[in-house]
């Protein structure tokens, strides 16, 4: 299992095929990127239920709402940066305010998109989507979880945003790993500190935790927060209470995203020292995925560093709590 690599977009595409088979109301829309998002597989299998909308994300979103209005279950898919940002007002007013049953697939999330560079690296969608009432936001950690999450999205009545990536990434769950929408998964128990991660960063968090245990004797809990909205307050508060310190990790701007949502829960319930590992208010760049993950501070060694620092702060109450 360890070494299996598979892109999360594969999981999305697989789920669409299963759903297409099961449910004649499933339709898929894409904006001239079906070869990259892999919705072309659905298109081949179910040509009558696939609509290429051309390069027109706003119209695609509105069309999806119309299809949902008429009882279909549309999966609107294109690159995350365009689907969330170019069609934001449409998602807000038409999809979310109208609470239509539209599922949004945001492909090519994160910096690991690589050589295409900043314009194509979606680093803000979690912030854009979680601020919307009625929206649900899912960022699965690997291809298998992406498949499960996509299948589960159909069970939810209303809008869902699913983020997935382009590059092959380690498969860290298996068929038997439980997946429940809205319920965080503890992948590794620990008592000294908790790392909460989503998407690709879950694997990096696990790697960091293992090394921290070996090298530093730290007992690190690792939580896979696949559902960012609605957020699993219980799991977060429990982690804060039981481990007293939290590090978050996401392939997204550190501001406004998953870490920010967790910080909101933490300060409201159980303030503990935190560090938010994410992109530090910069645009992306061209490069190989690995180079970029390193440059932008997203590999396990940055999580390790954040854990060690945060654990230090936990031990020094005076410095990081109220006077």
């Amino acid at each position, binding site marked *: 299992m360890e070494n299996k690599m598979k892109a999360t977009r594969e999981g999305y595409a697989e789920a669409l095929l299963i759903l297409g088979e099961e449910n004649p109301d499933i339709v898929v829309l894409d904006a001239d990127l079906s070869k990259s998002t892999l919705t072309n597989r659905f298109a081949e299998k179910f040509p*009558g239920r696939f609509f290429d909308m*051309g390069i027109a994300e706003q*119209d695609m979103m*509105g069309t999806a709402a119309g299809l949902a*209005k008429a009882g279909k279950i549309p999966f609107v898919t294109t690159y995350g940066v365009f689907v969330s940002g170019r069609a934001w007002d449409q998602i807000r*007013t038409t999809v979310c*305010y*109208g*609470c239509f049953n539209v599922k949004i697939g945001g492909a090519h999330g994160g910096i690991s998109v690589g050589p295409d560079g900043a314009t194509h690296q979606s680093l803000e969608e979690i912030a854009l989507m979680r601020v919307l009432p009625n929206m649900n936001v899912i960022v699965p950690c690997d291809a298998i979880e992406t498949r499960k999450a996509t299948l589960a999205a159909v069970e939810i009545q209303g809008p869902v945003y699913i983020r997935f990536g382009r590059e092959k990434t380690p498969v860290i769950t298996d068929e038997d790993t439980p997946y429940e929408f809205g319920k965080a998964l503890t992948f590794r128990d620990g008592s000294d500190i908790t790392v909460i991660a989503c998407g690709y960063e879950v694997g990096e968090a696990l790697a960091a935790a293992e090394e921290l245990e070996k090298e530093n004797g730290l007992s690190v809990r690792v939580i896979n927060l696949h559902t960012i909205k609605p957020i699993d307050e219980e799991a977060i508060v429990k982690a804060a209470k039981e481990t007293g310190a939290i590090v978050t990790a996401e392939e997204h701007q550190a501001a406004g995203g998953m870490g920010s949502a967790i910080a909101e829960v933490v300060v409201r319930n159980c303030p503990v020292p935190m560090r938010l590992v994410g992109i530090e208010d910069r645009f992306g760049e061209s490069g190989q995925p690995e180079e970029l993950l390193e440059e932008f501070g997203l590999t396990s060694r940055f999580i390790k560093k954040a854990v060690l620092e945060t654990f230090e702060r936990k031990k020094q109450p005076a410095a990081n709590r109220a006077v």
Partner: protein
Amino acid sequence: MAVKEDKVFEIPDFKPFSGEILSAPKGIRRKMIPRYEELARRIRKALLIAIQGAGSGHPGGSLSSADILTVLFFYEMKINPANACSPDRDYFILSKGHTCPLLYSVHAAAGYFPPGDLLTLRKFGSLLQGHPDWKKLECCEISCGSLGQGLSIANGIAMAMKMDEKPNRVYCLMGDGELQEGQVWEAVMTSAHYKLDNVCAIVDYNNLQIDGFVEDVMGIAPLDDKFRAFSWNVIKVNGHDIEALMDAFESARSFRGKPTVLICSTVKGKGVSFMENKADWHGKAPDAEQLALALRELDAQ
């Protein structure tokens, strides 16, 4: 003659006209033009009363579309006021959401909800939001208010109808200023590309938007050429001529292979002399005195 500011005006009785029309077979309706005219007049009165009661709202573009929607709901569309979501209904998508006082009045006239509710327009807790919220009021079909989004939704519904081989038609009303939104042209491309001849777009071509004349703010002429260049069937019609509108809708309905747009020449503020062709009356409520004057004018027509 001064009118007391707190006077409550009464919503006109629609029943004698709407009831008669709705119970008549379609073939007979053609001969009921004067009743349509009276119904449209009452709808105009109702929406003005609602806006005055609210103290804000959009009379100009509501009045300009009043005849169009009267014909659409009472002549052309398959509707079921007792069951707004009846599966065999035709769909009406209001894209220019700010003119919902008109839509609400038409709904009230058709019997979707008690006309008295119109007096709650824009008030806290009302089902009649400042811009339609279909989760509160199902007959609105969608929630809207951000311009330029309706035709895309209409297309989506129409695509679903085609998939399911259902005959339901989809109508979408847009403003002329609204056509400046790029999303509209994306949707215009889509309707044509997917040959959605079950879509009928309606442009309320009243020449005005908020900041002034459309041709001054951001010109859209020649509009018929534009739609034709986007491969639509184009019908130009006087948006205040009941019979011409009936003809236009019938012609649209029987046209195959392309979506149809009705480009309706209208007068913004139509029916109230001091509101006609005035940008200022786009989004301003009349006070009680102005309303009384407007109602008298309408009665005299």
